[in-house]
């Protein structure tokens, strides 16, 4: 692991992201990571709040195009996240909160996949997911997990 992170950090992409004085290097990669976060978590929030009973006039089935935005946000953040990790791999790999963040993202993605299946069969829940139903619990879990992933990500700068 230590060998891998040292190699990654010394790789062309690691060095460029970390050391290039260009505004297109670290600052832009970091900004795109924030845009991707906003799109991914924000689009999730639209679906989750709807399933929790907000905006009952909003047809659940009409929300399926949002999954394209979630994918775009996720792919953007997987790429920019890998670049940010490469720029400082040894230090980041030694941070427990980094693994907490990755675990939270994995759990959040799994929850999002569960919810997506239900949204695609939306006829059954268009009247609003019933209280205490699995769909509602999944929506609440999704909001909590994505929020916690943001918190863990932010704390990487402090812990």
């Amino acid at each position, binding site marked *: 692991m230590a060998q891998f992170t040292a190699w990654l950090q010394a790789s062309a992409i690691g060095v460029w992201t970390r050391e290039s004085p260009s*505004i297109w290097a*670290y*600052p832009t990669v*970091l*900004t795109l990571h*924030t*845009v991707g*976060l*906003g*799109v991914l*978590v*924000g*689009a*999730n*929030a*639209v679906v989750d*709040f*709807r399933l929790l009973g*907000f*905006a*009952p*006039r*909003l*047809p659940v*089935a*009409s*929300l399926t*195009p*949002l999954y394209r935005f979630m994918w775009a946000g996720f792919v953007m953040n997987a790429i920019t996240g890998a670049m940010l990790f490469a720029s400082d791999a040894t230090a980041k790999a030694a941070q427990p909160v980094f693994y907490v963040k990755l675990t939270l993202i994995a759990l959040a993605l799994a929850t999002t996949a569960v919810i997506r299946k239900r949204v695609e069969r939306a006829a059954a829940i268009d009247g609003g997911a019933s209280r205490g139903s699995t769909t509602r619990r999944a929506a609440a879990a999704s909001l909590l997990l*994505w*929020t916690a992933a*943001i*918190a863990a*990500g*932010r*704390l990487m*700068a*402090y812990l």
Partner: protein
Amino acid sequence: MDTFVAWMESTAVSRAIVASRVIWPVCEIVHFIGLSLVIGIAGFFDLRLMGFMKRVPVSAARDLMPLAIVGFLLNLTTGATFFIGKPHQYVGNVAWWAKMFCLLLAGLNAMFFETTVGARTINLGAGAETPRSAKIVGAVSLASWLGVLYWGRMLPYIGSAF
């Protein structure tokens, strides 16, 4: 401006914000959660105004907007906390002024929508085409919120805050 910065940094509130090891990181976490709400919820409405996702009734997309306002208020509060804590980082920072300009643009654009095209747009149902003016309002809104995010994230790199 220097007098204002010196005065603000001498206040008890400002000192407490900077002295705390918890306030700043917690406000940053909340600022990023608020950001997601604004981009996600307002962005959803903006895209519908622009003519995307036509199966979504405009009126129903608007029903979620209170959540975007919650996100905005979270960020107004936490943003004010950053400003009160370290005003010197912001008042002379070109990225901060660009961010404030984008915020002003987003606000004026929303006011324009509410007082003009909004009335004949917000009740449109699923499948309805939005007027051209509403499409422009949606595009300006989305661009100005992304501008707020961009200049905010660039504060340390263009205007050298932090």
